[in-house]
Each structure stands twice: as structure tokens, then as C-alpha cells.
């Protein structure tokens, strides 16, 4: 059934596994940076907690409620950037955000780590913000100057 195949490309088993049992979910007692993002279109919310030491992202967790795409993206994000230098975490976020901004991008391999599993989201304009919310929030947390920054990432509703 064609419909099921298309849907299965969107809701790959990797995506469903992450969304059902997200990695690094919850608050982080040792967090020294954080940011919160909202997606007003669907009410999704995501808070990212970072523990930064010596220019390294030593720990990362997230908290929030959202659709399967949003939760999977956040969970995969924590796996991808945990233990990275701040520069490479930021570069990964740039790469993800750019890749999702380009609907024509056919090659999912440019997405870091398991994010490739979310490549099909690009075919769903109304869902792209679900996939990018966590990464935008990470960017906000990374660029926050103060010890604890709460930045509302306002994603435009289209």
C-alpha cells in the first residue's frame, strides 16, 4: 500500500524508537546553560539543558512534549552532540537547520548521525519545524552568554 510506504518513510523505526523512549530525557542538575523553544503551530515545547566545561558539551538533556518527529529529533540530537566540542555541536546544528531549510536536498547522508532517519520530513513542509525545534533550541542554548539563559525560540507559524 503506497500510503503506508510513504508513511513508513516518515515514521521509520529509528524515529519511533527514539520518540517512544527518548534518550537523555529530563532535567539536568549540573546544567549551566539552557534554552526553551516553542512551536506555536502545534504547541510543542522543548527545553534543552547543557553542561559545558572547557569548551566541551560534557552533558546534554532535554525535556518537553511534542509529536513523534519532534521528540525523535531531540533525542537523536542529544546522542549526536553529547561529548562534542561547542564548535562542532554548533556546526552540527547549522548543518541540520540548513538541510531542513532546503526542501530539494535529496541526499540525507548530509544529516549528522541518526538524523538521516528524519530526512523524509523535508517532503512535509508543515512538519519541518517539528524536526528543527530541538536544534534551534540547542543553538539558542549554545549562544547564550550568561550561565543560565532562557531564550524563547519563536518559530514562525506559516
Amino acid at each position, binding site marked *: 500500500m503506497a500510503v503506508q510506504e510513504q*508513511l513508513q518513510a516518515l515514521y521509520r523505526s529509528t524515529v519511533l524508537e527514539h520518540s517512544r523512549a527518548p534518550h537523555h530525557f529530563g532535567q539536568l542538575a549540573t546544567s549551566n546553560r539552557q534554552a526553551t523553544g516553542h512551536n506555536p503551530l*502545534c504547541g*510543542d515545547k522543548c527545553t534543552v539543558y547543557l553542561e559545558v566545561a572547557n569548551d566541551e558539551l560534557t552533558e546534554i538533556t532535554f525535556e518537553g512534549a*511534542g509529536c*513523534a518527529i519532534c521528540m525523535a529529533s531531540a533525542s537523536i540530537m542529544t546522542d549526536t552532540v553529547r561529548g562534542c566540542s561547542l564548535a562542532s555541536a554548533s556546526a552540527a546544528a547549522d548543518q541540520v537547520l540548513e538541510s531542513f531549510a532546503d526542501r530539494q536536498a535529496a541526499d540525507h547522508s548530509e544529516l549528522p548521525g541518526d538524523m538521516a532517519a528524519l530526512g523524509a520530513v523535508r517532503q512535509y513542509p508543515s*512538519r519541518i519545524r517539528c524536526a528543527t525545534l530541538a536544534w534551534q533550541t540547542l543553538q539558542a542554548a549554545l549562544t547564550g552568554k550568561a550561565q543560565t539563559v532562557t531564550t524563547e525560540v519563536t518559530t514562525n507559524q506559516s
Partner: protein
Amino acid sequence: MNSAAEKQAAGTGLDPEKLRADFPILAQQVNGHRLAYLDSAASAQRPRVVIDAISHYYEHDHANVHRGVHTLSHRATDAYEGAREKVRQFIKAGSTREIVFTRGTTEAINLVANSLGQTFSAGDEIIVSELEHHANIVPWQMLAERTGIRLRVIPINDAGELQLDVYQDLLNERTRLVSVTQVSNALGTVTPIQEILAAARSRGILTLVDGAQAIPHQPIDVQALDCDFYAFSGHKMCGPTGIGVLYARESVLKDMPPWQGGGDMILTVSFTGTTYNELPYRFEAGTPNIAGAIGLGAAIDYLDGLGMAAIAEYEQQLLHWATERLRTIPGLQLVGTAPSKAGVISFNLDGIHAHDLGTILDHQGVAIRTGHHCAMPVMEHFGIAGTARASLAFYNTREDIEQLVTALELAHKMLG
């Protein structure tokens, strides 16, 4: 008419299967499936007659209104004013001076907030309800910021009904306006609007009814309601987007200050002073949405042809049937269970985010809305981020509901 359809429309005199053919957009396939359009509360579809009326106007009669002596300007003015008269009859207003064309419900409410609102002062109170669409909350919050008026809120219970006893307590000598919806867009609750209006009226308090979700589903009589304002949108009642109506009681409207200035709303302009036009033109600055008004007039003719009472009866049957059908789906929770509802079924499916549901349903040709439905306080009451909402019109059939049920079952299989 097949026997199934006959059974559906039993006693209402409507033949929904045949009516569907009046709506060109419904004939298409979406994502390889028959389109089941269950999002009419967001915006309804248009019958061919409305589309034709707009095309005919642009092809034959278009010119600016109220300004030319030439033939086309006369025709355009006649058609535009003819539409105003159709609106008057449709809502049983006493005079066309009480019918102000706006962009929609939102602009109609903003008109009242910006015009009548000028006469309010700090400490005055406006009562709205927890059920309101953002369009009937934010304009009053903005007015509160400007003037220091206070917004009071009638709470809802867990069925999604207004708590009238609390409302009675909220009414006091500072209350200047009660502005409440007749039907909730998020839950479908039909509010006891008559009681609400009567309680305000007996204390001499002005009233506004947000009729955006009521007018597509039942006959409306503003004189019987005895409200001061009634706001609605064309696009939710098979008319064009960008056109709506503010009904305003003449005795109230005549003393209201203008809100937007420009052409059409004046009689004379000079730098020593300007005199304003009569009602309703004083509230229609600038070239109006002429084609929109004409399209709305055609939509009213169409709805009148079917009969609003017949539409109401058929939709109630379908709503009841669909609600019972959805109740049989394991893990489905209805949000909003007031005994008196119109056109809307809001729900969540166990463990599946409404947004994912929306995408999976769309793949099967089923169009529903997901999210907070511009009624975030309602979602807050239930402690949820959003719902999936199937909303009905008279062109929906049991086949649409069956398609919805099948699609929900697939969603459950995939993500549940």
C-alpha cells in the same frame, strides 16, 4: 440518491450526496484517496454558485462602489448593497444600517474594541469566556493595555460548558460589555447564549455574540437574540475569505466613534473639519471587498435554498452518529462532551500526538485540523497541548466519517 444516503438525511429534506456535486473542490482525490473534508470549522468550501457569482461580477459588473455615475459603478453598487440586504434578511436584522461589512469576525470584534472601546475607562469590566477564540480575547487585552479596563472570564467545566453561576457573580455595575461565543470552535459546545444575553440585558449591559461557528449551523435571528453586536465570517458559511459582518444595533452604533478613517466613511472633508457619513458607511472606510460581499450574498442564497433548519437537523444527526462511531475506537478520548454541540468533534488518541495524527490522516485523504485551534485557554483547561478536530458541514456524509475511522485505525496501528 442511494438508500444509505436516504437513511442519513432521513426527514431533513437534504440530499447530501447530491449536494456534494455543488462543490467542485470535493470531487478531487487527495494523496490517492477520496477527499474527506472534515475541516469546515476552519474554513468551509464553496458551492459553484458562489464561485460563479464572483466571476460574473468581475467579468461584467466591476467598478468602484458609491462613487461613479457610470453604468458599471451603478451595477457594482447595486450588487454590493444587494448583498447587504441579503445579510440583513439572513440574520433578521431590522435595517441595513445595522450591517457593517468587515474582513471577518476578527475585524468585526476589533471594530467594536477600537470604537466602542474608546468610551470605556480604567476599572470598567468586559466579560468573555474561557471558550473564546483568540479573536475574542486579544482585542480586549489590547484595549485593557490602552485603557486599564479589566477582563473577566466565565470558566468552563470539564465537559466544556460555561459555568453560568460564576457568570452571574461576575456581572456588576462596572461591567460594560459581555462578549461571548455562541458555539465553541475548539469543542463544539453550544453556549446558553439566550440566558447569557438576558442576564446582561436586564442590567443594561451591552452584548456581543461571536457567531463565527454558529451561523453556518443554525438559523440566526439577531432580534430574537436581542444582542447589541453579532460578528461572523463569510468563509465559514460557504462564502469568500476576506469578508465578514458586524451586525450592530442601530441605537448603539449611531453613537459609536468611527475607527478607521478614509474615503466612503465621510460626507465632507475640509481642513477645518470633516463630517462623517451615515450608518453603516461611517464604519466602512476605503474601497470595500465588493466581490467578497457579492460572493457572500450568493452563499446566503444557496444556504437559504437548502434551509438553515434542514441543515441544522441533518448536521445534528451526523454529529450524533459520528460521535457514537468515534467512541468505539479504543484509546480515543473526546475533548468537550457538552450535551449541546454543533459541528465539531475534538479528540485525542492515546499516546499519539495530534500533529502526527494529522499527517497520517492526510495521507488517506482525510483533512482535519490539529493543534490548539486558536483557543489556547481551552487547551490549558484540559491540560493538553492540542486536539485533533473533525468538523462537519452539511456536505459531509457517513462515508467521510467511515474514512476518518479507518484512517484513525491505521494511525493506531502505526504509532499506537
